[in-house]
C-alpha cells in the first residue's frame, strides 16, 4: 500500500514541485512561507477533490467531461435552496449537494453501463445538458453573495487547527480514497477493470458496474465541490467553473494517471493538482504575466505524458537476457 503511493513517478513529480517552489522562492521568498503555501493548498482544494474522482474514472478507461458542469449545477441548486430557505442547516445542504452530485454521476454511469455508449460521448452530452439545466433553473440569473446566508458562506472558510474546512475536506478525501483505492475490493476492481477488462470479467468483476461506481464517485465529489465552490466564491451562475474539466483531466495526466486505464494513484492526482495550483498561484506573484499560464500548463501536460510514456514503455520479453544467464 505504501508502495503504490510512492512509485518513482510520484517522487519525480514531488521533486518537480519542490524545484518549482525553489525557483519561485528565489524571486519571491514570501511564496514559500507556510501560511502562503496553506493558501495555495486551500485554493487548489477543489481541483484536488475533482481530480480524485476523475482519476478513478480514468482508471476504469473512461473519462468524465461533465464534472465541472455537475459542480455548477449542484452549486446552483444548493445556492437557490439557501436563498429560498435560509434556515436549512449546512449539514442538510451538504447531504443535498453530495446526493445530487451522486445522482448526476449515476446518470453518466448508467448510460455507460447499461447502454454501452462511449464515456466521452455520454459526458460531452451531459456536460451541455447540465449547464443548460442550470440556465433553466436559474433563468440565467446569478445568486449573489448578499443573497446567501452567512452560515452557508461560512462553512468552507471556518478554520480548524489553522486550516480552513475547504482544505480539510480535500485532505479527508485524499485519506479516505487512498484507503478505498488500496484496501477495498471496489478500489482494486477499478484498477482491474482498467488494466484488463477481459480478465476482470473472468475474475468475477462486472466491468460496466465498476465503471458505473467510478462515475458515481466522481459525481459525488463534484457535487460536494459544487457546494464548497459556490459558498467559497459566494456566487452561483451558469458558467462557474466553465472549462474546469480540462484542468481536472490535466491534473490527472500530470499526476501520471494513464489515459489507457489501470494506472494511477490518489497521490499522483494530488500532486498533479498541486503542480497546477502552484503554477496558477505563483505566476501573478512573481510578476509573470498571467497570460503565460495557459502555455505553461499546456507544456506541463505534454512533458508529463511524454515522461510517463517513456516510463511505461512496453518492456520486451527479454528472451536474450535469460540466454546470457543460462550460458
Amino acid at each position: 500500500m505504501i508502495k503504490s503511493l510512492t512509485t518513482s513517478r510520484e517522487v519525480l513529480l514531488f521533486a518537480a514541485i519542490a524545484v518549482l517552489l525553489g525557483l519561485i522562492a528565489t524571486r519571491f521568498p514570501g511564496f514559500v512561507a507556510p501560511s502562503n503555501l496553506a493558501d495555495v493548498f486551500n485554493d487548489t482544494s477543489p481541483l484536488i477533490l475533482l481530480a480524485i474522482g476523475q482519476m478513478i474514472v480514468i482508471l476504469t478507461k473512461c473519462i468524465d467531461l461533465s464534472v465541472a458542469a455537475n459542480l455548477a449545477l449542484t452549486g446552483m441548486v444548493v445556492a437557490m435552496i439557501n436563498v429560498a430557505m435560509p434556515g436549512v442547516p449546512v449539514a442538510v445542504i451538504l447531504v443535498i449537494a453530495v446526493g445530487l452530485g451522486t445522482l448526476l454521476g449515476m446518470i453518466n454511469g448508467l448510460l455507460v453501463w447499461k447502454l454501452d455508449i462511449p464515456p466521452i460521448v455520454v459526458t460531452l452530452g451531459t456536460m451541455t445538458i447540465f449547464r443548460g439545466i442550470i440556465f433553466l433553473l436559474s433563468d440565467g440569473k446569478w445568486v449573489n453573495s448578499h443573497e446567501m446566508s452567512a452560515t452557508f458562506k461560512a462553512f468552507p472558510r471556518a478554520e480548524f487547527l489553522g486550516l480552513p474546512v475547504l482544505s480539510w475536506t480535500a485532505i479527508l478525501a485524499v485519506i479516505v480514497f487512498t484507503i478505498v483505492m488500496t484496501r477495498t475490493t471496489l478500489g482494486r476492481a477499478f484498477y482491474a477493470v482498467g488494466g484488463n477488462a477481459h480478465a476482470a470479467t473472468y475474475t468475477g468483476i462486472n466491468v460496466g458496474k465498476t465503471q458505473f461506481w467510478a462515475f458515481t464517485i466522481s459525481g459525488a465529489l463534484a457535487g460536494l465541490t459544487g457546494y464548497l465552490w459556490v459558498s467559497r466564491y459566494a456566487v452561483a451562475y451558469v458558467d462557474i467553473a466553465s472549462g474546469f474539466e480540462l484542468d481536472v483531466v490535466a491534473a490527472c495526466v500530470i499526476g501520471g494517471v494513464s489515459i489507457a486505464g489501470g494506472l494511477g494513484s490518489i497521490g499522483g492526482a494530488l500532486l498533479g493538482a498541486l503542480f497546477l495550483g502552484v503554477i496558477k498561484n505563483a505566476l501573478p506573484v512573481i510578476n509573470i504575466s498571467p497570460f503565460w499560464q495557459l502555455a505553461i500548463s499546456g507544456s506541463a501536460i505534454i512533458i508529463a505524458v511524454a515522461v510517463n510514456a517513456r516510463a511505461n514503455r512496453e518492456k520486451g520479453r527479454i528472451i536474450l537476457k535469460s540466454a546470457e544467464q543460462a550460458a
Partner: protein
Amino acid sequence: MTTPANAIPDRLQTPWESRLKSWEALLLLVAIAIFIANSFASPYFLNAWNLSDATFNFTEKAMIAFAMALLIISGEIDLSVAAIIALASTAMGAAVQAGAGTPVLILVGLGTGLLCGAFNGVLVTRMGLPSIVVTIGTMSLFRGISYIVLGDQAYRGYPSDFAFFGQGYVWWVISFEFVLFAIIAVIYFVILHKTNFGRSVYAIGNNPTGALFSGIRVNRVKFILFLLTGLMAGIAAICLTSRLGSTRPSIAFGWELEVVTMVVLGGVNILGGSGTIPGVVIAAFVIGLVTFGLGLLNVPGIVMSIVVGALLIGVIALPRLWSQWRQR
C-alpha cells in the same frame, strides 16, 4: 465441402439497400423534420437571406469536422483545433502588423495550421503518445502562445479585400464560406470513400495492428491526418478572422467540443473504424438548423446546447434501447 467456392456473391445487399438502412438516412429524416418544424415555428425561417446567414453558424466548424471525422475514424482525436484557430489567427494578425497583404495572410494562416498539425502528429506518431492527452496539452499550449503574444490586445486592421473570405458572397445569397464548405465536403467525400488512402483510414481505425501487418504505413497515414486537421483549422481561422475582422486570443473558444459533437452526431464512431462524410454533412445542417431555428425564437444559446446534447446521447442511445427492448 461440395459447395463450389465461386458461389460466393460479391454482395448480399445492393448499395442502395444498405444506404436506406443507414444512419445517414435516419439523420436526414431528423434534419428534414427540424426544417419543417422551423418553418412552422418562425415566419422568418423560410427566407433565402436568413437561411444564408444561418450557414455561418456551422460552415467553419464543419470544415474542421470533415478532417476530424477522418482522424476519429482512424482512432485518434484532435482537441487542439480551436486553439490552432487562435494561433493561426494571431499569426495572421501579426503579419498584418508587419504590413502583409491578403495573399501572404492566407499563406500564414494555412502554414500555421499545418505546423500545429505537424506538431501534434509528431507527438502522436513519433513518440507514440495518446492523442487525446497530447491535444489537450497542445490545446493549452497553442492558445497560450496566442495569449503570450496578444495578452490583452487585439489585432485589427485587416486589409479590406481580406474580408471576402468570411463576409463575401459568390452569387446572390451564396456566401464564399458556404461554397468553400461544399467544395471541402466533396473533397473529403472523395478522399474517404473513393481512394486507397480512405480505405487505409478505415483499416487503421478498425485494427491498427492488423493494418500495420497488412503493409499499411500506419504512422504516415495518421501524421497526414493530423496535418489535414491542422490545415482545415487554418482555413477555418482565415474565414473566422475575416468574418470578425479582428483577432483576440479567445477566438473560437470551446469550438473543439462543438466540432467533435458534430462528428459524433454524424455517425462517426468515437472509438474509430466507422463513419461517413455525408453523415457529418447532415449533422452540420442538423446542428445549424437547430441553433438557428431556436435563435429565431430568441431561445438562449445554452438551451440550444441542451437540445444538441440530448440529440447526441439520444441518437446513440435510442437504437440501443430499441434493440435491448426487442431482445426481451
